[in-house]
Every structure is written in structure tokens, then in C-alpha cells.
């Protein structure tokens, strides 16, 4: 995803156009365009890929004992008889207008469901991010400050362990202790439309904590590596020799230069948050996109599967795109055209 970073910025050519005087803008536009092309390609992959896979949906929809007439009727009803590209274009057209079609299972509007559930999922991911990002960066800085000493090693070992914990282990462990044994948290994390904000927050405490634990370790280790990389440069040594105290060096000299890699790590993990939410939602019976997708996959409700897949991919790609753009912006070398 870092193509845009490696391609050479447009120099001041003889033509001297708009983009050559604004290499930064050109890079960013290029990156955003790439994101949209990627998204379009993925929508095609999601739609066509499923078409070319073996297995007849009408057949599996009706079960093994279906009569050929019944299968033909269903195919007609679901609109499976039109050629693939025609159906793809009409599907894409609908998607662009916010219409994801209707579910095969209950004939309900997919967009309506997604509208409700995407909000819930983003709410959960947002709070997990609010907690985990400052915590990870803070812990990363502490680890760098005490590098190779006991605290750093402790953080290192604990985070290596935490990376290996599957979401369902952490999740059920939290449920067992906090909800069942001590009764201080709520399970299952049901939320509904006209719920008070504080109740809603109380309901997501445990899933949120699970997500934080899942991404925290990774984010912290990468932050540590990024800052450590910078701590070995010459200007840090200068700062040390000037007699500045350690936290000032980390905060004022190292951190600004570590911003680009840290932004990258944070965005990657946020993208992971939105996706890792699938398992967490199932654990905590939380009515979000992940639960919706898993339910749809189980009953092979293809319009829902395609819609959820596309929404998840879009969130993932957009977050990655933002990371790249912020990375470009954070690089002072690209900010001033020569």
C-alpha cells in the first residue's frame, strides 16, 4: 500500500504545470485515486469471484431435494438469469446510490440493516481506539525510556503473550471474571436504538476491553521499534550530550520524527480493529456488522455477504489510505517543493 511513497515526486519539468509545482498534492491525489481504483477492483472481485465459484445458489437455497422447476423459479425470482456483467453493473449502480439490494433470507432491505449496524460497529471500534491509541503510544515511550531494563523486558514479554491470545480467549476470560464472578460488567452486550448514551457505554465495556487488549500489544511494539530506530540517530546523541533530560528528548526530538511510522501502525491497527470486531461481536452478541456478516455466511445469504464484505473492505482501504496520506503530510521533505 506504500506505492505512493516510493514513486518519485514530479519534478519541476519544463511544462511547469499545477502538479509539478505541488508535488505533495500530486502524491496525495495519486494515493486517493489508487484507493478508489482498488475499491472498484475489489467490488468486481467480490461480485465476479462469487459468480465463478462452483455451486448454484438456487440449489443450495432450496436444499438437496429441490425439483428442477423449483430451482428454475428461484433463479428467475432472484434475478440470476441475466448475464454476469449486467448484474454487476446494476448492483454497482445500486451500491453507489446506497442500495445494497434485498436479503434473500427475509426479503428485508440490506441497506437499512447496514445503516443500523455500521453505526454500532463504528461506535465500538471508536471507543476501543480512543482507549488503545494513547495507551499504546505511552507504553511504547515508557519501554523506550527503560530499554533493555526490567520494565522494558516485562512489557516485551507480556505483549508477546498478548499478541498470541485469540479474541475469544480474552473475551470469555473477561466475561467469566467481570460479568459472571464479580458481576461488575454487562453480558451480553445488547444495544438497541433508543438506549441512553451511558447505558450504551456500559454495555460495550467488555467488548471494548477485549479489542483494546487485542490491538494494544501490537501497536505498542511497533511504536517502540519506531522510536528506538530514531533514538539511534546522531541528533538524539547531540541532545543527550547537551544534557537534556530523557523524557524531553523522547517527547521533543524523537517523537516528531517517529510520527509517520506511528501513524502507519495506528491506522493499520484501527483497520484491524474494524475487522477484528467480527469475532468480538459474535462473542458478546453485539448487534453490529460482524454479527450480520457471520449470520449471512452461515445461511449463504449472498446479497448480505457481498454488501458486508464491500463495506468492511471499504473501511479497511479508506483507513489505509488516510494513513498513507497522513504519512506523506508528516514527511517534511515532501512538504517543500525544490
Amino acid at each position, binding site marked *: *500500500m506504500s*506505492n505512493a511513497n516510493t514513486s518519485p515526486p514530479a519534478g519541476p519539468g519544463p511544462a511547469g504545470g499545477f502538479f509539478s509545482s505541488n508535488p505533495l498534492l500530486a502524491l496525495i491525489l495519486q494515493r486517493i485515486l489508487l484507493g478508489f481504483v*482498488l475499491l472498484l*477492483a*475489489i467490488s468486481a*472481485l*467480490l461480485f465476479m*469471484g*462469487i459468480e465463478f*465459484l*462452483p*455451486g448454484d445458489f438456487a440449489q443450495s437455497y432450496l436444499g438437496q431435494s429441490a425439483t428442477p422447476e423449483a430451482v428454475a423459479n428461484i433463479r428467475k425470482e432472484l434475478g440470476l438469469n441475466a448475464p454476469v456483467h449486467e448484474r454487476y453493473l446494476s448492483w454497482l449502480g445500486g451500491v453507489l446510490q446506497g442500495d445494497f439490494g434485498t436479503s434473500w433470507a427475509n426479503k428485508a432491505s440490506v441497506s437499512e440493516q447496514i445503516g443500523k449496524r455500521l453505526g454500532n460497529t463504528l461506535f465500538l471500534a471508536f471507543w476501543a481506539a480512543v482507549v488503545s491509541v494513547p495507551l499504546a503510544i505511552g507504553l511504547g515511550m515508557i519501554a523506550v525510556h527503560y530499554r533493555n531494563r526490567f520494565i522494558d523486558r516485562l512489557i516485551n*514479554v507480556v505483549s*508477546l*503473550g498478548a*499478541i*498470541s*491470545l*485469540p*479474541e*475469544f*480467549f480474552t473475551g*470469555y*476470560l473477561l*466475561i*467469566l471474571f467481570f460479568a*459472571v*464472578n464479580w458481576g461488575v460488567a454487562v*453480558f451480553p452486550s445488547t444495544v438497541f436504538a433508543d438506549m441512553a448514551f451511558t447505558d450504551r457505554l456500559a454495555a460495550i465495556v467488555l467488548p471494548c476491553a477485549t479489542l483494546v487488549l487485542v490491538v494494544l500489544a501490537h501497536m505498542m511494539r511497533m511504536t517502540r*521499534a519506531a522510536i*528506538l*530506530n530514531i533514538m539511534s540517530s546522531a541528533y538524539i546523541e547531540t541532545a543527550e550530550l547537551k544534557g537534556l533530560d530523557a523524557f524531553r528528548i523522547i517527547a521533543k526530538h524523537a517523537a516528531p520524527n517517529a510520527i509517520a511510522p506511528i501513524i502507519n501502525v495506528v491506522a493499520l491497527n484501527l*483497520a*484491524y480493529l474494524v*475487522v*477484528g470486531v*467480527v*469475532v468480538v461481536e*459474535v*462473542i458478546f452478541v453485539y448487534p453490529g456488522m460482524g454479527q450480520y*456478516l*457471520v449470520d*449471512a*455466511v*452461515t445461511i*449463504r445469504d*449472498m446479497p448480505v*455477504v*457481498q454488501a*458486508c*464484505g464491500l463495506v*468492511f*473492505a471499504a473501511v*479497511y*482501504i479508506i483507513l*489505509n489510505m488516510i494513513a498513507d496520506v497522513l504519512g506523506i503530510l508528516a514527511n517534511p521533505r515532501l512538504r517543500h517543493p525544490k
Partner: protein
Amino acid sequence: MQMIKAMPWSARIGLLGVFIFLFSAVFADVLAPYGEREIVGDVWEPSSAKYLMGTDNLGRDLLSRMMYGAQTTIFISAAASVLSFSLGIFLSFLAAVMRGWTDQVLSRLNDLMMAIPTLIFALVVLAALPQELWILVLVMALIDSTRVFRLGRAVAVDIVVMDYVEAARLRGEGRMWIIFREILPNALSPLLAEFGLRFAFAVLFLSSLSFLGLGIQPPEADWGGMVKDNKDGIIFGVPAALIPGGAIAALAISVNLIVDWLLNRTSSLKGGRGDV
């Protein structure tokens, strides 16, 4: 023996952990006190001398199921990792050797696949395909091979420009010779560490899929599926679901400890490029 002596304690713990899991998986048929699908007691009995880990949601012995589950989980994950490695390495080396449009097509296709989150990709594909074991392995391998491809290409591109590859080319060796006799032996050590990581990831991935009900189908025992079977017990304070969950974590941690050591060893050989 010499190698084990030179290992740090963390890698030794990892090795011991992997050995225990492998041992109980391979000899499950001999070691397991009860059958895989045999109902031996009441539902969710606590651990006792008769049932060391207690019983599960149907009254099957949890320890026996853990052993048979280790068989399924480790075997399927290993099969998927080996397949993804063979595919990823071959294609990435091919891209590095051929350059030009082959490289472009393979790399851009890989970028496209990597732009879709793995679990979402797997869920969408498994929704469309029939539920069979070999399909599951194939899907896991294909998705994972994108990560291997990225690393393999990065490693191979560095090696392709070496003098000995040039010498082999001038000698008139074929493409396959260059891939398997020149590049592969020299790329093996960083790739070995990656294999451990991919295997740990495959265990977690397979377990997540099974947990969601889309991986290995019951009544076959596998760790992720056992978490799913026993999750309702949590509400009554029965920790049966945590045992397979903990086993997955323990196996992943053990593998990670070994990988950590391997990475440090290879990076110190190259003058310390690691830790980034």
C-alpha cells in the same frame, strides 16, 4: 543437543511447549483416556480424577477431545501453512527472476488480494463454496500466501542481483535451477522464521473460523469449535471454553518464542538488522 544448549530460556520454553502439543497430537489415539465422540459423563462436570479437565457441553471427556482437537488443529494449520509457503515462495521467486510484466501482474494481483482483510475475504469465499475440508485448507493457504509472497519477493529481489546468480545465468542454467538451487537456499533462514509466524497465524485463523461455525464441522474435535461448543457454560461459571482457548494461546506463544529466537539469530548473523 548443542543447539538447545545455546538457546535462551524463552526459546527452550517455546520448544518444550511445541513438543508437548505435537506429542499429544500424534499419540492422541493411544494417550486419550476416552474416545473423541464418546459421551462418558454428565454435562460440564468439574475436573476430577476420572475426568482431568472435566466434561464438555454434551458430557464428553474434555481432555480426550483436547488431544484429538490438537490433531485436527495442528494438522490442518500445518497443511495450510506448507501449501501457502510453497505457493507464495514459488510465485514470489518467479516474479523476482522474471521481472517485467510477470512481476507486475503478480505483484499488483497480490496487492489487490492484500487490500481485503483476511477474515472478511475468507468469510465471503467460504460462503460461496461447499463446506469441505480440502476447500478450507485451500482457502486458508491462498489467503496466507499473499503475505508469504510479499516477503519472498523482497528477499529474492536482493538475492537475484548477487554475482553467483549472474554466474549461474551466464552458465546457462534455467529459471527453475536459479529459483531452487540459487535463491531458495540463500533465502531459507529469514523464510524459516516467517514459516513459524504463518503457522501460529494459521492456528489462530482456523480457530477463529471454527469458532464462527465456518471452519471444521462438528462432531470432529478442534480447538476453535470446542470454544464454540462450550461458550454457553461461561454464563454459569463453567470455564470449559477457556481450556481450548488457552491451548490455542499457549501453542501460538510457544511458536512465537521460537520465532523470536530464530529472528534474533539470523539478524545477529547479518550484523543486527532485526528489531524493526
